[in-house]
């Protein structure tokens, strides 16, 4: 009834080709972004900011990066955690070694370093595909884990191997309170998210998708696999690297390589698979699922137990949390193998017909 595009006529190509051709979509998305910027800071307490919203935003950004590579270009990667680490440590080194380096500049340079590293580790993708490529990217994970643990230079000779950053500043804005941190991450995410959406709609995104769908056919119609694959690796690693910088600088404040372990790589890959491969909005759904659900379950279970008069120990809670979480992953993969993003688009289709389905 409300969500129907009948009678909306486009008079120019520009109007037809915009990101959200349906005005309802456009207003809803703009409304959500505006709410995220102006509404949430007024409503939310510190715990939600620090424990849920900030990790959610940063990991959404990382998932977005992985989605570009896995979902759009079809190159499976298990090295996302390593590229996050490269982004974080490169940003750290730029910040402390170059005097007068602004924090945002360090994070972006960290992202660029991650992009260069991504290109190097993307070279095997020109020869090997599928699972074999996944194994090759795993090498990146182990290599960088090793490097940041062993090479003292990266950690500025910290005796414990843990590095830390404080006094974040952007121009004259001191990013101290959780609200500031949240707005900073949100700002970066909105800019980079918009960029990603436009990249995948443009010529380069079409090349990625052509390579994903059938690389031989793509080569025949004149797409250079070298350029397409390596650019996907570069862009993806840039996103993941920036997310890594934010994770270290803004969320943790102090970190060691364990923060970017192989578990993180798997987590990011699962976000993309569960959220929806080849979908920008799917990255957000996936990140929400993986970041928020375990914490939600962890807090819910004692309350549910309380309703029935049971006292649930924290060990049991955490075991049950893992079981339910695993069961939900399987459930979603069975009922909707294309991820939560597909559920979302099905819901939208239904909404268009509502209240008079065929």
């Amino acid at each position, binding site marked *: 009834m409300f969500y129907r595009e009948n009678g909306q006529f486009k008079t120019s190509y520009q109007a037809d080709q915009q990101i959200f051709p349906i005005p309802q979509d456009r207003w809803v998305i703009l409304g959500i972004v505006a709410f995220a910027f102006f509404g949430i800071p007024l409503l939310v*307490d*510190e*715990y*939600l900011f*620090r*424990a849920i919203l900030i*990790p959610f935003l940063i990991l959404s950004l990382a998932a977005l990066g992985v989605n570009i590579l896995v979902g759009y270009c079809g190159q499976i990667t298990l090295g996302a955690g390593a590229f996050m680490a490269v982004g974080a440590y490169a940003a750290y080194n730029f910040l*402390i070694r170059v005097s007068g380096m602004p924090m945002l500049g360090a994070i972006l340079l960290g992202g660029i370093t991650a992009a260069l590293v991504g290109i190097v580790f993307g070279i095997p993708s020109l020869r090997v595909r599928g699972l074999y490529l996944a194994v090759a990217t795993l090498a990146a994970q182990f290599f960088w884990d090793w490097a940041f*643990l062993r090479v003292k230079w990266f950690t500025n000779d910290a*005796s*414990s*191997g*843990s590095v*830390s950053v*404080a*006094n974040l500043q952007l121009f004259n804005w001191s990013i*101290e309170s959780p609200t500031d941190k949240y707005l900073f991450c949100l700002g970066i995410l909105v800019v980079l998210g918009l960029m990603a959406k436009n990249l995948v709609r443009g010529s380069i995104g079409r090349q990625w998708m052509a390579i994903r769908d059938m690389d031989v056919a793509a080569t025949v119609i004149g797409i250079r696999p070298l350029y397409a694959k390596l650019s996907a690796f570069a862009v993806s690693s840039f996103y993941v690297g920036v997310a890594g910088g934010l994770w270290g600088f803004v*969320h*943790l*404040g*102090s*970190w*060691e390589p*364990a*923060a970017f*372990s192989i578990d993180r790589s798997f987590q990011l890959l699962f976000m993309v698979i569960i959220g929806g491969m080849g979908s920008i909005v799917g990255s957000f759904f996936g990140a929400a699922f993986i970041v928020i659900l375990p*914490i*939600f379950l*962890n*807090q*819910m279970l004692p*309350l*549910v137990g309380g309703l029935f008069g049971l006292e649930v*120990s*924290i*060990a049991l*809670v*955490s*075991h049950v949390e893992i079981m339910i979480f695993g069961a939900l992953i399987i459930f979603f993969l069975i*009922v*909707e193998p294309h991820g939560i993003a597909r*559920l979302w688009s*099905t*819901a939208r289709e*239904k909404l268009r017909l509502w209240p008079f389905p065929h």
Partner: protein
Amino acid sequence: MNLRKLAVAASVAAIGLSAALTTPAAFAAEEQFFPVLAYRTGAYAPNGAPWANGFVDYMKLTNARGGVNGVKLIWEECETGYATDRGVECYERLKGKHGGATAVQPLSTGITFALTEKAPGDKIPVITAGYGRSESQNGAVFGWNFPLVGTYWMGADVLVQHIAKKEGGFDKLKGKKVALVYHDSPYGKEPIALLQERAKMHGFEVQLLPVAHPGVEQKATWLQIRQSKPDYVFLWGWGVMNSTSIKEAQATGYPREKMYGVWWSGAEPDVKDVGDGAKGYNALAMQHGAEPNAKVIKDVLSLVHAKGQGTGPKEEVGQVLYMRGLISAMLQVEGVRAAQGRYGKGKHITGEQMRWGLENISLDQKALDALGFAGVMRPVQTSCLDHMGSAWARIHTWDGKKWNFSSDWYQGDEKVLRPMVMLASSKYAEEKKIKPRTPEDCKK
């Protein structure tokens, strides 16, 4: 899938979430809230669970004894699984409850590092009794960190003193080789700085052998030990890594008598499975070992466990890690007591007042005896500039069935430790642009 079902499920979940978030924060002035960050699951659970049991039992005991001048202790556990991000989430979740957390004990070096950045803003002391970052002993720079009764540097120093004594003097260490088998994390790397400093002083060689998390893969490490034949092996392991190391030592034929673990590597779960194979294995006892005969343990058994309120199995009461948890809880309770002495007996203490309390813990032998810690601990005296308070430790040895003390008391050498602490903490202050507190600031 059926959209309606999904919508129903989502709204049920949403209602649940709002219920979870609006739990009323009961605030009563005569209660003192402590978050308990524990890990009862994961690779380190066998060691994390007894610690948490001891910790909670002591708070139950304190309540059974009538609280701290009548103030009851309340607490809430949160499972970290030894993961830094979950630990930070737990801290954020609990820090504001019940009128604010009094102090937090992160029980993981990684979480300690993360909370070190957050504590000054939140004004909540971070107690790391025996672990954490060693340079945080300097209270002038690390105003909110309390590595009470020992740090890893102090522990490593005592181990070096012990082997020097065995060899017959520090000069005999020249040309010796000490291998450090360590958990490859900030925790395992902590002692390296001190060992290298001591190695320079006495001319022995340190061989560094990292073991990746969780530490079940050690074949290559022990092959190296077999080749290089170090005179001593120091073990900085945790959880399954410890028993694996001892088993590998047995397999390689390295004498267990020459192995020395840190206190995280010297408890019953580490050696029990190996049984006789671990006979002769030594570990650092940071003040206490297994203390089943201490008066405080008898109190716990009679006042808590006998009433069916005990945490965890009764047989584990008094074991090494249980004692560690117990002492950690005791120190924070004594911090509250000290703070109440200044800010009003029987009153609720804020995080900032708690800091003053922790900086003015003064437990002489008489006070310890009264609490039931006779023979377990030596006196503790903290100050604004010294957040450690006591540098005593012993060595204990596993005889196949239980831990026995095998050395006299040692004290960490201030002449070695102090300059290192000052150097590292001033570097930290410089990086973070912290102005160290002066003795005048301390009086506030």
